[in-house]
Every structure is written in structure tokens, then in C-alpha cells.
């Protein structure tokens, strides 16, 4: 067994094992940390597939952004040291059954067919190639989706501020919260 195969299976075990722990752990903070390791394992798989740019994006956006956001929201909403309540056994059983049946169906379909790739010369996924095609406006260029996604990010930014900002106007009396800090914006 060569080294690259061993590394692949180690990364796979890291991803799947910590993913499984992330959805079953009853302490929510540990669950977030297991999610972090699962995402790092996925980034390692991207490195193994030699898609270095995607691996870097994965680490920066997921590990550096989303998991930190999730951890901060856990700090804001959970009482520390409190376990999540035990779920009903029937619900756990049926969820496991549904997930296992779906997995079995997909894997049976997967191993029934042999997927054959093209024989054309591969394009190296370097940053120069990615950037040229990402901002290209000719056939196969991704300039329009790029602009649409930037508009989506702007909309999400404004929406987050509007939703999460504490309500300052006392026009709805029953939903007014006592906020100790004065709202300055």
C-alpha cells in the first residue's frame, strides 16, 4: 500500500468519523468542534485531489468563517455546561433507518454502473485558469453568476443586519425587549 492511499483513507476516516460525532454528540460545543474537524478532513481531501484553490477556499470560508460564526452563536444562545435533551428512541431509530435506506439505494445504484471519463487533455486547476474563466464573458465564462452571487451576498448582508439588529422603535408594545445597552445606530 503506497503512502497516498493511506493518506486518503485516513482523511476519509477523519471526515466521516468526526461528521458522525458532530451529529450525535449531546454537548453542542463539542459537536461544533467535531464539525470543524470534519470540514478540515474535506479540505484535506481537496488537497489530496490536487485542487489546492478549493481547499484553501474551504479552509478560509468554512473553518475560518462559518464554524467561528456557529461557535459565537452557541455562546450567545446556550447555557454553558448544559447537555442537549435526550431524543426519543423511536425518532432516532426511524431517522437512522431512513438514512441507512437512502445510503443503501444510492450505493447500489453507484456500484451498478461504471463511470468512464473523457480522454481529453486535462486543464490544470491553477489560479490563473480559474480566474480567467471565472471573469470571462465568452462561452463557458462565469461572469454573470459571479455578479449574481455578489448581489446575493449583499442582500444577505443587509438582511442579516435588519434581522439581527435589536428593535429600537417602541411601536409594537408586546415585543419590546429590555435592552440594557442604548442603541446608538
Amino acid at each position, binding site marked *: 500500500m*503506497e503512502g497516498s*492511499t493511506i493518506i486518503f*483513507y485516513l482523511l*476519509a476516516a477523519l*471526515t*466521516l468519523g468526526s*461528521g458522525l460525532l*458532530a*451529529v*450525535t454528540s449531546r454537548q*453542542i460545543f463539542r*459537536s*461544533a468542534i467535531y464539525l470543524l474537524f*470534519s*470540514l478540515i478532513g*474535506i479540505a484535506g481531501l*481537496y488537497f489530496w*485531489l490536487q*485542487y489546492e484553490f*478549493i481547499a484553501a*477556499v*474551504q479552509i478560509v*470560508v468554512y473553518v475560518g468563517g*462559518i464554524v467561528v*460564526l*456557529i461557535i459565537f452563536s*452557541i455562546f*450567545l*444562545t446556550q447555557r454553558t455546561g448544559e447537555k442537549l*435533551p435526550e*431524543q426519543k428512541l423511536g425518532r*432516532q431509530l*426511524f*431517522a437512522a433507518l*431512513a*438514512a441507512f435506506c*437512502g*445510503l443503501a439505494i*444510492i*450505493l447500489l445504484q453507484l*456500484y451498478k454502473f461504471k*463511470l468512464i*471519463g*473523457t480522454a481529453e*487533455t*486535462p486543464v490544470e*486547476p491553477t489560479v490563473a*485558469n*480559474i480566474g480567467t474563466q471565472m471573469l470571462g464573458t465568452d462561452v*463557458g465564462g462565469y461572469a454573470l*453568476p459571479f455578479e449574481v*452571487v455578489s448581489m446575493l*451576498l449583499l442582500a*444577505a448582508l443587509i438582511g*442579516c443586519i435588519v*434581522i*439581527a439588529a435589536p428593535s429600537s422603535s417602541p411601536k*409594537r408594545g408586546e*415585543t419590546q*425587549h429590555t435592552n440594557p445597552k442604548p442603541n446608538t445606530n
Partner: protein
Amino acid sequence: MHPGLNEILFISTALFFIGVYGFFTRRNLITMLMSVELILNSVNLNFIGFNKYLWPHKLDGLFFTIFVIAIAAAEAAVAIAIIINLYRSHNSIDVENAEELKY
């Protein structure tokens, strides 16, 4: 045996259904969001595997992965804003307590 496309697809399928299991069993909104992140990651791994082994002369799977990551980031931010707003008004982020989603 050197790992190929089938192994990548096995990992992504297993990760997808781990996420589905978490989404079914969890009743806390943040842990449900974490399950959704696992599902989105499995889809990204699928795109990259197909792009690497079946269509290596194009980069389309890679671009789809980039856009999925961007949309997932926006989705996580909006979901956490909603969760924090819900916690402010209900003092709980359990989905059983969030059945009247009215202001």
C-alpha cells in the same frame, strides 16, 4: 487498490446521509444548521470528484463548488441572524418552541 471516483462518491454519500440523520434527530436549530453544512459539503465533494475524474478538461464542477460555498456562507449568516432573533423573543432555539413563526 488506488482510490478513485467510487471511493470519493462513497465518502460524499455517507457524509450526505450523516447530515440527513442529524437533520432528522436534532431539535436544536444550531445543530440542524450544522447538519445542513455537512450536506452542502458532501455535495461539494461530489462536484469536485466528478470534475477531477470524469471531465478533467473543463473546470465547471470547480466553479459550481465555489458558488455553492458562497451561497452556503450567506445561508449560514442569515440562519444565525434568524436564530439569534428567535432566541431574543422566545429564550429558546428549540424547534418545538418555534412553532408560531410570527412577529
